[in-house]
């Protein structure tokens, strides 16, 4: 059952075709990883899905509904949220506010409510706060809820981004290099978290360069090179794909050339 | 009650008190319109110096000067401060109509005399019995000027230029335009500028094409000079005619040869002075580095002197009392001409001086006496 479908999606920047006729389906409830060399077009795929870029050609749809031309902010309403490769938090706001803002599209209160503070609005606020704290607890950030986001360390900021994306209860969560800047220990924890998120019914679409993580949790992997899909399959299949090894994986066994 | 908290009443009226009589100055010392305020102030300081040689009712006169930077909210604050904190008996200023209207409301409600030494617009003295001005009214001078220009000079085709963001200019242009029509002239082109503009090439190009006999400009001298420079540059031969806004040595300093022949009216002229005026001019030059007094300085000087005279004549420094004496002033021989307050307290100044720029100076063209009804 396909949740998100990319149908012949292409985008060109000037002369450069960053994503080239990509066909891809993300299935309900799975963890799908998108890997590929730097500059292959992975982040661009995410930007296309979230309408930050519009495809030059092709179509993207969620649950059969076309996403093309829909403004970015409505994409979140429809159930797709994401994290960014370069962290984009609300740096001068508290951790809790960051997450509350993440739940924006699940709220209803408008100006009228803001100015009257009717009970219904307070109820929504309380509920939102509760959900936000739950999300923070889930990502082990509850203790930092009053800190300013910019004062968190890199790894914490990455987790906060996930919490913010999660709190809107998306159908599908796009993670762009969530493990970047984390040490192996932290990556293990992150892996566990991603699994648990999926277990709550959220589909995961993941871009990541850490093969331990990718191979460890993904059910399927798609490989992008120069904007083209060069392979699709289970981790096992992909790992042994010649083209993938050549373009991306390398030997996997680093040996110092000069010492030991 | 009315005037219950008036300071002047707490001090017994008459000569016994040694407290100085305080006069407030309201005007801009900084900001766009600072020039008018600062020149008024020069005249005021002259007056104070002179008054303090003998004193008024045996008391010194003291000037409290405040800068409103040309802003209404500051003007309100200052007026309140001058009245309630400094306890002045009269305020001289502001040279502009707009602020005078605002300050006039307050001064009038607090029973303090206010005399503007420059405002020419409508709805000023109508505010109430404490509001005065000693300016030559455009409604009298402008028609007289147009009559001279159109009938005596025969310049029938007029280019009328208005500074659209200057209330003085907009009001004056209306008067000019009516007077032009009633004297049989016709406006061949009407153009607009803004105060502080420096480039008039666009307007002048159009005026040249309209080929007028005369350029009537209702704004201030800076823009006037620049307009004429441009006009001469493109070969327009017509001279400029305008109101007392053109009065100011800077007209010639900036305009040079281009403003030769320009005609304007004024309630004050250093030319062919009366003895009184001559004395003032000499003292002014001595005090201010050989500078010639301008209209604002002369009117500022006169404003304070008229007020002082009213205080002396009524024997009281209480504005409630001396305002009536002030309103009675008739044919006061001021340095800026003779001043009479009508029943409405609107001033009539006589004569109207028609001046022409000659060899870089304002030369008297004609004195037009004004009938006091």
């Amino acid at each position, binding site marked *: 059952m396909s949740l998100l479908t990319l149908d012949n999606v292409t985008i060109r920047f000037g002369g450069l075709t960053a994503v080239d006729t990509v066909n891809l389906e993300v299935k309900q409830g799975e963890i799908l990883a998108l890997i590929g*060399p730097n500059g292959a077009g992975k982040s661009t795929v995410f930007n296309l899905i979230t309408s930050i870029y519009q495809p030059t050609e092709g179509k993207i749809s969620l649950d059969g509904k076309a996403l093309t031309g829909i403004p970015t902010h409505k994409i979140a309403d429809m159930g797709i949220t994401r994290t960014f490769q370069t962290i984009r938090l609300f740096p001068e706001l508290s951790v809790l506010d960051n997450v509350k803002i993440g739940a924006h599209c699940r709220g209803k209160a408008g100006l009228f409510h803001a100015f009257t503070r009717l009970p219904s609005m307070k109820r929504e606020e309380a509920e939102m706060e509760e959900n936000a704290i739950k999300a923070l607890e889930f990502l082990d950030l509850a203790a930092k809820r009053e800190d300013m986001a910019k004062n968190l*360390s890199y790894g914490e900021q990455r987790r906060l981004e996930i919490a913010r994306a999660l709190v809107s209860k998306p159908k599908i969560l796009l993670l762009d290099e969530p493990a970047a800047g984390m040490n*192996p220990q932290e990556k293990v924890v992150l892996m566990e978290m991603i699994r648990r998120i999926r277990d709550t019914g959220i589909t995961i679409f993941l871009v990541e360069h850490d093969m331990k993580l990718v191979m460890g949790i993904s059910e399927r992997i798609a490989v992008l090179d120069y904007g083209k899909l060069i392979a699709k399959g289970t981790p096992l299949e992909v790992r042994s794909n010649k083209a993938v090894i050549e373009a991306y994986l390398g030997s996997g066994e680093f040996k110092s050339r000069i010492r030991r | 009650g009315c005037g219950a908290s008036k300071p002047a009443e707490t001090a017994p009226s008459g000569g016994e008190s040694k407290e100085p009589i305080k006069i407030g100055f309201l005007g801009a010392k900084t900001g766009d319109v600072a020039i008018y305020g600062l020149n008024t102030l020069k005249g005021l300081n002259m007056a104070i110096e002179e008054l303090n040689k003998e004193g008024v009712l045996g008391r010194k006169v003291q000037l409290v000067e405040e800068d409103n930077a040309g802003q209404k909210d500051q003007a309100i604050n200052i007026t309140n401060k001058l009245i309630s904190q400094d306890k002045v008996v009269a305020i001289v200023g502001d040279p502009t109509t707009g602020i005078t209207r605002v300050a006039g409301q307050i001064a009038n409600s607090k029973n303090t005399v206010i005399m503007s030494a420059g405002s020419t617009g409508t709805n000023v003295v109508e505010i109430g019995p404490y509001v005065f001005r000693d300016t030559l009214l455009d409604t009298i001078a402008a028609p007289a000027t147009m009559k001279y220009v159109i009938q005596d000079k025969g310049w029938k085709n007029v280019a009328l230029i208005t500074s659209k963001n200057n209330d003085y200019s907009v009001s004056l242009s209306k008067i000019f335009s009516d007077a032009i029509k009633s004297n049989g002239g016709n406006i061949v082109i009407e153009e607009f500028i803004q105060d502080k503009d420096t480039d008039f090439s666009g307007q002048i190009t159009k005026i040249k094409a309209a080929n007028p006999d005369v350029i009537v400009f209702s704004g201030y001298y800076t823009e006037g000079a620049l307009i004429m420079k441009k006009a001469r540059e493109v070969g327009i031969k017509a001279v400029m005619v305008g109101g007392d806004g053109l009065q100011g040595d800077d007209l010639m300093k900036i305009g040079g040869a281009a403003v030769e022949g320009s005609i304007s009216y004024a309630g004050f002229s250093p030319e062919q002075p009366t003895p009184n005026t001559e004395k003032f001019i000499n003292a002014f030059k001595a005090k201010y580095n050989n500078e010639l007094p301008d209209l604002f300085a002369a009117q500022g000087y006169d404003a304070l002197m008229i007020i002082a005279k009213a205080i002396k004549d009524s024997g009281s420094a209480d504005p409630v009392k001396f305002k009536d004496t002030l309103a009675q002033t008739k044919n006061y021989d001021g340095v800026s001409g003779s001043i009479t307050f009508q029943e409405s307290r609107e001033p009539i100044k006589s004569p109207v001086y028609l001046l022409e720029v000659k060899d870089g100076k304002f030369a008297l063209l004609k004195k037009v006496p004004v009938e006091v009804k």
Partner: protein
Amino acid sequence: MLKLENISVSYGSIKALHNISLEVKSGEIVALIGANGAGKSTTLRTISGLEKPANKDSKITFKDVQIQGALPHKIVEMGLSHVPEGRRVFPDMSVYENLLMGAHIRKGKPDQGDFDRVYHHFPRLKERIKQLAGTLSGGEQQMLAMGRALMARPDLLLLDEPSMGLAPMLVEEIFHIIEDINVAGTTILLVEQNAHLALEISNRAYVLETGEIVLEGLARDLAENEDIRKAYLGE
């Protein structure tokens, strides 16, 4: 070559470093590893003059000259290059201009040899010579940042997480390049999350935890250390 004694640094009320001391000898590769927020980047930023030590008795010696408190450009002129965290390429300049900026401290125009050296390590940069750096992919930007630093022909190179966000093959490549650069005579202080590879190529290493150095020693020894294996190698 480089010596840090008693360095403490705070950001407002947050203390990022407490009395750090470490040393890098000429010709070495020294690794600095530690968890997120341990203060690794802060250490590098302090060395290159971007942050000022908070305490008076702190001392940073580079080539026998005390440099604590000096302005970054002075330190750079002495032969130190710093590839900062997050690449920090000049986004509105072309790749070529970025490289030229790298050679800023050198008198006159950099010669073709410098460019060739960079292109040799990073052929991808040669392909993108005219592209604006801001539109490069993450990995391409990392290559540019390192290439840019090499243009200054530094004696000491500070690298802040050079493998972050790179494809596995590239990670290996980058580490080989680091070795090559070192072999060619540049001393290197390397901050890495990828402790595995970092320890593999370094002579010595320091472990930083919440602003303090908790362990130091030969890289080989640390790689064998049980605690380290658990905490930083994810085993």
